[in-house]
């Protein structure tokens, strides 16, 4: 029995979210329903700590600097710096996709892809983990400049359909979140198929 509905997208701040993946996250784990995450999935503890560390430090910055929010670029840079620092001490085995909304950025939204070694790149679309082998080509084809939310979510759903069809190790439970001027919200969350 293993947990099928673990939400791997953490809300970092009011207008940014960070999704993580990595080899550890693919391992099956034991669970009691809905109890404290790090007790339940101890091998995912580095991910939980990482997200908490990042989001709490971002909150601290806001508190210490008179309510000034860090831009998505700054948040991504901070995250990258932490990954790079940890690399030679005790690396986080987490690959990150960080997305956020800033008012003063053309187009508003920006997306950053980071690997567990600490390299960071701003991208129009990205994928981490085994999914990338299947989905990057789809997004290469479908993505274009100036998509609205509906079109973007459609592309994400296209990727998910592809994984459901072709990916051997796939778990069909996906959660889609959108970050825009109103903040972070969940657009679609499949339920755990083992719940009745």
């Amino acid at each position, binding site marked *: 029995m293993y947990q099928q509905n673990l939400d791997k997208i953490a809300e970092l701040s009011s207008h940014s979210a960070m999704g993580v993946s990595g080899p550890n996250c693919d391992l099956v784990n034991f669970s009691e329903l809905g109890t404290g995450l790090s007790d339940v999935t101890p091998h995912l503890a580095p991910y939980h700590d990482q997200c908490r560390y990042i989001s709490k430090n971002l909150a601290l910055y806001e508190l210490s600097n008179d309510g000034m929010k860090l831009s998505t670029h700054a948040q991504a840079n901070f995250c*990258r710096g932490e*990954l*790079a620092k940890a*690399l*030679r001490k005790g690396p986080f085995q987490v690959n990150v996709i960080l997305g956020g909304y800033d008012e003063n950025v053309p187009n508003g939204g920006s997306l950053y*892809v980071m*690997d567990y*070694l*600490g*390299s*960071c*790149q701003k*991208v129009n679309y*990205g994928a981490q983990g085994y999914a*990338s*082998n299947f989905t*990057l080509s789809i997004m290469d084809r479908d993505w274009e400049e100036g998509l609205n939310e509906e079109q973007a979510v459609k592309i994400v759903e296209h990727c998910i359909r592809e994984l459901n069809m072709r990916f051997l190790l796939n778990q069909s439970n996906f959660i889609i979140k959108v970050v825009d001027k109103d903040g972070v919200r969940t657009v679609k969350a499949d339920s755990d198929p083992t719940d009745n």
Partner: protein
Amino acid sequence: KQYYHNRKMSILEYNGAAVIAMAGKDCVGIASDNRLGIQYQTVAMDFKKVFKMNDTLFVGLAGLATDVQTLDQLLRFRMNLYELREERTMTPQVFTNLLSNILYEKRFGPYFAEPVVAGLDEKGSPYLATMDLIGAIETTKDFVVSGTCDGNLYGMCETLYKPDLGKEELFETLAQALLASVDRDALSGWGGVVHIITKEGVMSRELKGRQD
């Protein structure tokens, strides 16, 4: 794991890079490719490996992407500190020594990056230097290369290089040397960027090459 790749890749080949710098008549050029990969998968086609330190000094960093980005930040930090304390701009020779020092400090746990320094010294004459990942400096008068296809780059430079090229000819030479070299290397490519540095300013151009 055998299914994905048979040959074990060294850490310096993990992300893929090609960096090249050449001296001309009162000018220097520095160029790099645009690919960021994770082993054989391409993740981005606009990854910057050449960084401007000031109007007459550029550094190109080939190697592990995380260390390339860390070093860029470290170098700008150290250079800004120097300029605040000394109240003068850093010369390329001093910068090269600084970079070498930063790398050797990590002698037994190094930054996996092999840099290339290109700039104009105070008299306006070209300065080129390269070093390995632990900071062994080599200065040359003609060209310096670094990256996963450094063998290809050496060959192309040796063939195409002529001393005292003007800035347009230098641009052409750099572009051809870079593009031909990365075409034979799976880990670098996806276009490139060339910067030509003269006393008057910097000319930067994007290269469109084979997008594979």
